[in-house]
C-alpha cells in the first residue's frame, strides 16, 4: 500500500474543510442533526430524509459535508435521548438505553454522556483515518472491476445486508426484490421504453427513492409511534448534575472504547444493519469480559462506552464502500447516494480521482464534525434536555410538515409528496407484517445498477452466465454470498443471529 500520498491528500482535505464556509456548514449539519436526532422516535434515516432539502441549493462539497454532519449528529443525538429518557430514537441506541438510562437514574447521566462523547470521538477519529488509509487502494481495486464483478458484488452486498439484518430472512429478501422492481420503474436506458409508467410522465423519470425513504421511514415511523402509547406520557428526563466522569469511570472505559472501535470498524464496512450489530456485539463482548457481569443492565459504564464507540466507528466506516465502490450498504448510505445524485455526482471510485477536493474535504470534515459533536453536546446538554421535554403531540405535526416540504422540494413537484404518501401507507402495513423497510431502500438504489451490470456482463460474455463463476473476483464474492446464506440455515448460527438481531428488534 502506498501511504506517501496520505499527507498531501489530508492536507488538501483540511484546506477544503477548514474554509470558513465549509466549517459553518459542517457545524450547522451537526447541530441540526443532533437537534432532530434527540427527538424521541426519530431515527437517523428519517432525520436525513427530513433535512435533505436544506442542502439542495448548496454546491456539492458543502452539501455533502453538511449531510455527513447531519448523519453523525443524528446518531449521537439518539444516544443522548437513550441516556436521558428511556426512549431510543434508533435501534442502535437500544443498547445504550440498557445501562445508560440506569446510570441516568442513579444521577450519573452526566458522566455517561461524557464517556459516550469521548468514546464516539475516539471511534470517529479511528474510523476517519481508516477511510483515508483504505479508501485509495480500494478505489484502485474498484477500477479493475468489470460488469460481472460489480454485479456479483451487489449480490453479495444485498445478501449480507439481509443476513445481518433483523427479522425473517425470506421477508427481507422479498423486500429487496420489491425494492429492485420499484427501482427499475421508469425509462429503460437501452430501449427507451418507459416501464411501468402507465402514461404518467413523472413516473417515466422513475420513482425517486428519497421520497420512498421519506414515506417509509418518516411517515411510517410517525404513524407507528402514534399507535403506541409510550410517547403519549409525559417523558421523565434524567437530571444532569455534573459532566465530569470519575477516574474509575475513565479507567474502566478505556478498554471498552478501544474494543468497541475495533468491532465497529469491521461491522461498518459490512453491509447490513451495521450500527445495531456493532453496538450489540460490543455490549455482549464487554459483558463476557467483565469480572462481574451482573452489573450490566444496572448501570455499568462499560455498557455505554463500548457500544457507543462501536456505533460511531461503524457510522464512519460504512462510508468506505460508498465512497470507494459506489455501493451503499444501508438505508442511510442509500440516502447519501440520493444526495450525491441530486448534486450531479455519481458515487464510485471516480469521485476520488475526479473530485479529490470533495473526497478529501469530506473526510477531513468528518473528523472535524466528530470534534464538534463533543464540543456541541457537552456544554449544550441543558438545551437538549429542555428540547426533550416538548411533548410529542406538539412535535410530530411539525416533523410531518418538514418531510412534506422536503419531498416537494426534490423536484418542486407535488408528485413526490403523493409518492411519499403511498409508500408511507405501504411501509406501515409492511412493517406490521414483519417486512422491514431498510432492505427495500437498498434494493431501490441498486435496482437500475444491477440491471445495467447484468446486461453488460451478459453482452460481453455473449449470453453465457458462467462469466460470473469463471472470473475469480466475481466467483469469490458469489462464494462468500453463498456461504452467508448457507450459514444462516445452520441451526447454531441461526440461534446466534436470533439472539443478536432479535434482541435489537425488541
Amino acid at each position, binding site marked *: 500500500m502506498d501511504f506517501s500520498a496520505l499527507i498531501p491528500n489530508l492536507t488538501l482535505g483540511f484546506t477544503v474543510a477548514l474554509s470558513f464556509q465549509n466549517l459553518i456548514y459542517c457545524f450547522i449539519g451537526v447541530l441540526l442533526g443532533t437537534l432532530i436526532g434527540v427527538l424521541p422516535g426519530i431515527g437517523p434515516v428519517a432525520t436525513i430524509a427530513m433535512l435533505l432539502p436544506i442542502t*439542495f441549493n448548496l454546491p456539492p462539497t458543502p452539501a455533502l459535508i453538511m449531510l455527513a454532519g447531519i448523519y453523525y449528529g443524528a446518531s449521537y443525538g439518539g444516544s443522548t435521548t437513550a441516556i436521558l429518557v428511556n426512549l431510543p430514537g434508533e435501534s442502535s441506541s437500544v443498547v445504550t438505553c440498557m445501562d445508560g438510562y440506569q446510570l441516568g437514574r442513579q444521577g450519573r447521566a452526566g458522566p455517561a454522556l461524557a464517556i459516550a462523547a469521548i468514546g464516539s470521538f475516539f471511534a470517529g477519529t479511528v474510523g476517519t483515518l481508516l477511510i483515508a488509509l483504505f479508501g485509495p487502494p480500494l478505489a484502485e481495486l474498484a477500477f479493475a472491476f468489470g460488469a460481472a464483478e460489480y454485479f456479483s458484488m451487489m449480490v453479495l452486498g444485498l445478501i449480507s445486508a439481509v443476513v445481518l439484518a433483523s427479522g425473517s430472512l425470506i421477508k427481507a429478501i422479498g423486500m429487496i426484490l*420489491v425494492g429492485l422492481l420499484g427501482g427499475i420503474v421508469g425509462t429503460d436506458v437501452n430501449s427507451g421504453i418507459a416501464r411501468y409508467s402507465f402514461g404518467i410522465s413523472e413516473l417515466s423519470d422513475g420513482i425517486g427513492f428519497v421520497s420512498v425513504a421519506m414515506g417509509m421511514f418518516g411517515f411510517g415511523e410517525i*404513524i407507528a409511534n402514534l399507535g403506541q402509547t409510550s410517547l403519549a406520557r409525559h417523558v421523565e428526563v434524567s437530571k444532569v448534575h455534573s459532566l465530569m466522569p470519575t477516574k474509575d469511570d475513565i479507567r474502566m472505559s478505556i478498554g471498552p472504547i478501544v474494543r468497541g472501535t475495533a468491532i465497529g470498524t469491521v461491522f461498518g464496512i459490512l453491509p447490513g444493519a451495521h450500527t445495531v450489530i456493532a453496538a450489540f456485539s460490543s455490549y455482549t463482548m464487554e459483558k463476557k469480559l467483565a469480572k462481574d457481569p451482573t452489573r450490566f443492565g444496572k448501570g455499568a459504564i462499560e455498557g455505554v462506552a463500548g457500544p457507543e464507540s462501536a456505533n460511531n466507528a461503524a457510522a464512519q466506516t460504512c462510508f468506505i464502500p460508498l465512497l470507494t465502490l459506489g455501493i451503499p450498504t444501508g438505508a442511510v448510505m442509500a440516502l447519501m447516494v440520493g444526495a450525491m445524485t441530486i448534486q450531479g455526482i455519481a458515487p464510485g471510485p471516480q469521485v476520488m480521482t475526479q473530485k479529490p477536493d470533495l473526497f478529501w474535504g469530506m473526510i477531513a470534515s468528518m473528523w472535524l464534525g466528530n470534534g464538534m459533536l463533543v464540543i456541541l453536546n457537552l456544554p449544550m446538554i441543558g438545551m437538549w434536555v429542555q428540547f426533550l421535554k416538548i411533548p410529542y*403531540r406538539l412535535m410530530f405535526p*411539525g416533523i*410531518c410538515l418538514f418531510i412534506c416540504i422536503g419531498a*416537494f422540494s426534490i423536484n418542486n413537484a*407535488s408528485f413526490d409528496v403523493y409518492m411519499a404518501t403511498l409508500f408511507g401507507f405501504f411501509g406501515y402495513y*409492511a412493517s406490521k407484517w414483519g417486512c422491514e423497510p431498510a432492505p427495500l431502500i437498498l434494493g431501490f438504489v441498486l435496482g437500475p445498477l444491477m440491471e445495467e451490470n447484468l446486461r453488460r456482463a*451478459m453482452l460481453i460474455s455473449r449470453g453465457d452466465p458462467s462469466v460470473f463463476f469463471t472470473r475469480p473476483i466475481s466467483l469469490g464474492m458469489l462464494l462468500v454470498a453463498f456461504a452467508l446464506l448457507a450459514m444462516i440455515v445452520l441451526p447454531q448460527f441461526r440461534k446466534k443471529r436470533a439472539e443478536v438481531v432479535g434482541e435489537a428488534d425488541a
Partner: protein
Amino acid sequence: MAFRDRDRKDFNAGIMYVVIGAFFAGFATNYPMGSAVRMGPAYFPTILGAMLVTLGLLLVFRSFFMRGGERPSKTHWQPLLGILGAVLLFAFLIDRTGLILASAVTMVVCSLGGWDFKWKEQVVNSVVMTAAVVGIFYHGLGLPFRLFPWS
C-alpha cells in the same frame, strides 16, 4: 392446519409479495423480452417478479405450519388517516394555494392524528411552524415556493 390457524403476518406478507411479483412479471409481457445476450426491458423484471412470487408462495405455504405466531397489531386508523390525510392535503394545496395555507392546514389536520387534541394549542403550533417554515425554506434557503394563492 386450519385456515384460521395460519400465521397471519407470514400469510399477509406472502400474499403481498405474490401480488407485487405477479403484477411486475405480468405487466412485463407488454415489453420486449430480448435474449440473454441482449436483454430487453422485460427480462430483468420478469426474473425478479418470478422470484418474488416464489418467495411469496413459500411464505403463504409456510404460514399454515407456523402456528402460534403473533398476530399483526391492529391498524391505528386515527394516526394513519390523520397523517396521510394531512400529507395528501399538503400535496393538493401546495400547487393551488401556495406554501402558507398548505403548511397551516397540514399542521392542524396532522395533529388530529395524535392524542389529546386541543384546538387552541394546535392552532398556535400551526401558526408558529408555518412562520418558521416560511422563514427557513423561503427566506433562509431561498427555495422557490409560491407563498400565497394569488402570488
